[in-house]
């Protein structure tokens, strides 16, 4: 991954979103666009335990963290996942990013009960990258569309309203039609009020080979930040806990320079926007957070 010198830095304005790389880089799928090359064999980052998450939750209280996000890999490969979410709902709202293919009824019942007893929302974000097997499976793997849709149905049966998250692997011109086909497809499966979040692709990891990497010109300069709403950048308000320390954002954990410290408290410093992925974050804004937490600073 190429980086540049003299990049402008971003101060952490407040730690609003605390992420957990709860399944490391381990996933039951091997998606061709994965920006950190997660797979069943990639154990460069490992699972977080319930006690480790609990320790970080405790640390987060004094910092005033507003939302907790869990990602991987596939979070539900971590058998502590349901207890981790139950514990998190004692502190604040929790969002888990899953491929929906390994969910078990017993976990979902536990989580539905925990959310009902909590003040806070539990959000499931289910990754599906096409509205049909023909559009999804070439990216996420054979049979994954049907398996993910079964996961969505299961979530809906338990009363959840999952946010279907799709990486934009189609052209901008096709966006309206593709979104419409997603909605139609989801309603046809019985999900009456589907929620969608479309993400830009990040030209890192496996996606770098599927399409292309970042050009040297795709970097953020100081001039580009004049009059820019910095809250659109993840590093303005987020950090991510992994089993190898705390990193600046969920996208850059494979970049050694993105590791900021061992504790959250050590990781509150500024970070230079030197990566190509920073350019995508800059272009699209708020790419990782939920729509309910979206807000723009005064123009």
């Amino acid at each position, binding site marked *: 991954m190429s980086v540049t010198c003299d990049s402008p830095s971003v101060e952490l304005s*407040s730690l609003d979103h605390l992420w957990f790389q709860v399944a490391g880089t381990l996933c039951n799928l091997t998606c061709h666009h994965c920006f950190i090359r997660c797979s069943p064999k990639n154990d460069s980052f490992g699972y977080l335990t319930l006690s480790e998450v609990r320790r970080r939750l405790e640390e*987060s*209280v*004094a*910092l*005033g*963290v*507003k*939302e907790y996000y869990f990602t991987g890999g596939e979070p539900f490969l971590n058998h502590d996942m349901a207890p981790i979410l139950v514990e998190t709902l004692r*502190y*604040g*709202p929790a969002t888990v990013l899953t491929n929906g293919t390994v969910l078990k009824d017993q976990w979902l019942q536990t989580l539905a009960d925990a*959310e009902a007893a909590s*003040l*806070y*929302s*539990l*959000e499931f974000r289910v990754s599906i990258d096409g509205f049909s097997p023909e559009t999804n499976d070439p990216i996420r793997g054979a049979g994954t569309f049907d398996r993910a849709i079964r996961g969505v149905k299961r979530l809906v049966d338990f*009363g*959840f*309203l999952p946010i279907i998250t799709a990486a934009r692997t189609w052209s901008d011109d096709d966006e*309206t039609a593709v*979104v419409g086909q997603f909605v139609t497809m989801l309603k046809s499966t019985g999900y009456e*009020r589907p*929620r*969608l*979040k479309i993400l830009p692709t990040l030209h890192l990891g496996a996606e770098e080979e599927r399409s292309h990497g970042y050009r040297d010109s795709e970097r953020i300069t100081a001039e580009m930040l004049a009059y820019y709403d910095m*809250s659109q950048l993840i590093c303005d308000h987020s950090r991510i806990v992994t089993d190898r320390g705390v990193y600046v954002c969920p996208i850059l954990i494979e970049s050694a320079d993105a590791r900021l410290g061992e504790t959250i408290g050590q990781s509150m410093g500024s970070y230079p926007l030197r990566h190509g992925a920073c350019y995508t974050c800059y272009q699209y804004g*708020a790419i990782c957070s*939920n*729509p*309910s*937490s*979206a*807000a*723009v*600073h*005064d*123009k």
Partner: protein
Amino acid sequence: MTNKHMNRIACFGGVYSNYLALDVAIRDARRRGVDEILCLGDFGAFGPHPNRSLDLLRMHNITCIQGNYDHSIGNELDDCQCGYTDPRDNHFAQISYDYTLSGTSVEHRGWMRELPEQLRRKLGPLSVLMCHGSPRQVNEFLWESTTPTHFLDKLARDYQADVILSTHTGIRWQRELADRRRAVNVGVLGRPENDGQTNVWYTILSYSRDVELQVEFVPVEYDFRSLADEMDNEGLPKEFSETIRTGWWTTCLEILPAKERRRGRY
């Protein structure tokens, strides 16, 4: 910021041009003998004839702060800065914004342009901070189900407030914080709360030595059918008047967290 001492105040936000509910709420609050009535912003959007609400607010000397909508209208910006991410929500928001901007007098625009973003008041000995979205950002969403208590504790400490009042999300709630502090979303008068009821809400806050802070959410019944008919006559989207008639939100749904979304019909 001014700092008046009082024992009983009425607060509301999100008028959204619902001048019929505003009129009822003001009369009701006056009848209850409050020391001051305050509006936490977002005077326009959604409803008909924006000048009518503004005329009422100013005629009754309601103390107002500026919401994101009022900042946009006052400065004639291109959109409402509501922070929607869904194209459908933005589509309806833009219809509403264009209608409201064109229907707001130049004089009212100038007035709202100069309003403060926040105010402080003393309610008994309590320091009350009034804002639109949050103390740190005018259009920040503080939903009940996505706002941790420890986050509110930090806001209260950082902004040295015993009570934080906000609106913006359109659904009222309150939470007791550490050290007997309180966060209250005072609700909105502009549209119902996505619960199938047609009434809207405002809030009365009282201080007494016996109970210290008392927060009362007050339902406002008004002639919602007339408002909905006027919205239709003005050519506003049927989706808007349906919300007024049914109490269910039909637009701006993507910003709702899971718990709040599940309570609605759509």
